[in-house]
């Protein structure tokens, strides 16, 4: 039997590390800050404002500037959502009125079941991002740890496929899903399962690359130590490697979630009844009629729709930021 584990290029970087395997795996999840770098407040006081500013303060300055740059255009959306009669961009007077009527109305429209859209978006977004992380991690593990014919070409192809201009994507997806639906109606046109499967078609590609780069930084010595202990490759992958690469899994999961929840074109083709639609598809109907656009209601819907993304980010932040650093410096 040939040994597919072949430590070679790309792993020297990681090999310079010498982390305690078990320690890394268990501490990663519990902490979001490296322990030894926690600031010592008395020390900061001693050194005075000048030092503090050079060390940390300027970062706040940049933070505030970026806060304005990032959030300012969205203030228009928030302002519109609080104004029952306003428009999106008609005026430079923000927050003239504060009225939560739009938010109440969102949940009272029989034809536009906002609550259902919200739940659908969560289900589809979370399922897709979990699936994407899983499929992507499997592939990245193979590319990082095993050596096989067509490996480099395969990696490149994954990226190139996604560069194809998708002018006809919608037509092709429709044909495909309606064909599948003839045999398995549960995953045909009109089903959320079908939509999730289409999204999973994009699981490999950029995500695989992102994970691949990260997998390469995990020293092969960890795998080998575990193998000597008699663990199967599946066991190594699930119980050891996946924990070590938690930061990148969180990043990919978040990117996939955001991408899925804001995807409109394919979702609007696949999901046909209002009860199954997602926020992106449903909300668009508020403003797609040139003559009866409802920007204020739409804005309220978009503001609420951004909350899950923020919540997920807050939740995942400890994995993204904690990560390997915490384990490696033990």
């Amino acid at each position, binding site marked *: 039997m040939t040994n597919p584990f072949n430590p070679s*290029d790309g792993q020297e970087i990681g090999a310079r590390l010498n982390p305690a395997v078990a320690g890394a795996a268990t501490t990663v999840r519990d902490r979001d800050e490296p322990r030894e770098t926690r600031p010592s407040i008395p020390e900061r006081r001693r050194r005075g404002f000048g030092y503090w500013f050079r060390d940390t303060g300027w970062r706040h300055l940049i933070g505030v500037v970026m806060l304005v740059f990032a959030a300012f255009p969205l203030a228009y959306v928030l302002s519109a959502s609080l104004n029952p009669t306003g428009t999106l961009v008609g005026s430079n007077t923000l927050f003239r009125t504060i009225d939560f009527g739009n938010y109440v109305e969102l949940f009272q429209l029989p034809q536009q079941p906002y609550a259902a859209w919200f739940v659908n978006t969560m289900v589809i977004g979370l399922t897709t991002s979990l699936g994407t992380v899983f499929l992507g991690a499997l592939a990245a593990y193979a590319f990082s740890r095993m050596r096989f014919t067509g490996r480099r070409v395969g990696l490149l192809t994954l990226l*190139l496929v996604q560069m194809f201009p998708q002018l006809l994507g919608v037509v092709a997806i429709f044909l495909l899903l309606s064909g599948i639906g003839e045999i398995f109606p549960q995953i045909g046109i009109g089903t959320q399962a079908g939509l999730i*499967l289409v999204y999973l078609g994009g699981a490999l590609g950029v995500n695989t690359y992102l994970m691949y780069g990260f997998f390469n930084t995990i020293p092969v010595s960890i795998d080998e130590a575990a193998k000597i202990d008699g663990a*199967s490759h599946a066991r190594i992958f699930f119980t050891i490697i996946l924990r070590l690469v938690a930061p990148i899994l969180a990043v990919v999961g978040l990117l996939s979630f955001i991408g899925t929840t804001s995807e409109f074109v394919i979702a609007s083709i696949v999901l046909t009844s209002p009860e199954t639609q997602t926020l992106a598809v449903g909300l668009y109907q508020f403003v797609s009629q040139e003559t009866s656009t409802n920007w204020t209601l739409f804005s309220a819907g978009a503001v609420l729709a951004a909350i899950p993304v923020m919540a997920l980010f807050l939740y995942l932040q400890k994995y993204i930021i904690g990560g390997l*650093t915490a384990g490696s410096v033990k």
Partner: protein
Amino acid sequence: MPASRLAASSGSSMRSWAIKIVLLGLVDALAVFAMFVLFMQESWIVFGVTLAVTIVINWIYLRPGGLPAKYLAPGLLFLAVFQIFVVVYSGYIAFTNYGDGRNGTKADAIENIQLTSLSRVADSPTYRLQVLEQNGSYSFLVTDPDGDVLVGNPDQPLTEVTNAEIDGTGKAISLDGYTTLSFADLLNNQRAITSLSVPFSDDPADGALRTPDGSNAYVYESALEYDEASDTFTDATGLVYRDGGEGAYVNDDGRELIPGWTINVGFDNFVTAFSNDDIRGPLISVTIWTFAFAILSVATTFILGLFLAIVFNKPGMKGKKVYRLIMILPYAFPAFLSGLVWLGLFNQDFGFINQVIFGGAAIPWLTDPWLAKASVLIVNLWLGFPYMFLICTGALQSIPEELTEAATVDGARPWAVFRLIKFPLLLVSVAPLLISSFAFNFNNFNIIYMLTGGGPRDINAGVDAGATDILITLVYKVAFGEGTGRDYGLASAFAILIFIIVATVSIISFRQTKALEELN
């Protein structure tokens, strides 16, 4: 190997083996079901493919070894079905004339021409209708406006009958020897009934009755007659329309009947793509701007994203969670909504940027060629930096602290540590993503269309290309903007050509990245 470890290992082996067999069995069961359906539908080719794929899957997972395939197969299957299919389909369409007016089969086109050429004779009366059945064939029982009742079928012209049963409104509803069809019966045979044509007499010139709804019949006349033997349509004035070999029936004056149908056109679309004046004229300037736009978009978003990732990667900094959270917001809102807001902000007379920031200046952000380019880049930076920020924040985690610590101990300045140690390491892992981001922006149709529509357009230039048009928006205008409407065949040919450009640039960049990787 410790005994306990071995025991646990073999126990879990048994369990995993069982799970594997169950899952594989499930797949096989679904495959058998699909093959059964295909068998019944006599779709032999697909049946064969399904069988082959099922065998391959079983082989991959049951044979010893071949580990990479076992890990790659699930993702690759999804990729093959949903991504490769789109590419293959586009490739196929590039060799056809598929597009507006050419989107079906020839049989559909013939049927449709016949359907639309039939029309009710103007001001002709309405005959109230009851459809009857006798020995499996349909007949019309009609009540004419004078209350006379006639019966007939496509082979037997209408004749008057007197023994029909009449309902309260004076409409004949049944006749001895015939079965009266209910509405449900009509629904079950809709095509057959709407295609019935019951003549008034043996002379076709007297006209015939047809029904669009099963309860009223009208005298219909056809403006075009189809002759199957010669495959031609002839209109009332005797003009003949022939299959001109280009997916439509044309007469000698070149007038086409609509709709046409999809045919294979070989390399015609590629020839058009290369010879089209609307493309060739502005090609050089548009290509330069496309590259500039893609490269600058990647550069600006990456630099800002990386900078912010480093700034907020400061342990112990207060409030960085809030900063991070706000900074991903541009990514969390629907992009077209943000685009509309930016459109408003950039409005020359009313926008916030001119009114408030520039104190009422009339800066033509979106209508001056150079400012429009800058505006597009600014908005794309706003939309794109959170992505780069997230990626870089994640990638920074993979750089071991020991390296920087060691360097710092050796007396290196922070900037030197970053430039010489962190940045090269970071680049190795994010370079592929930068290339991919380049490819994405190269074809970033939405941002251009949303903000400027490719404009401002030089109205005197005679071509549609505007100052912010990139290749994909130009292609869109050419392939979808002519009088004939959307030409998917041409669009696909362009898509393939653009793909070749992007792929070539990407592969070359990859070579560079490899060199970089080997340096480390």
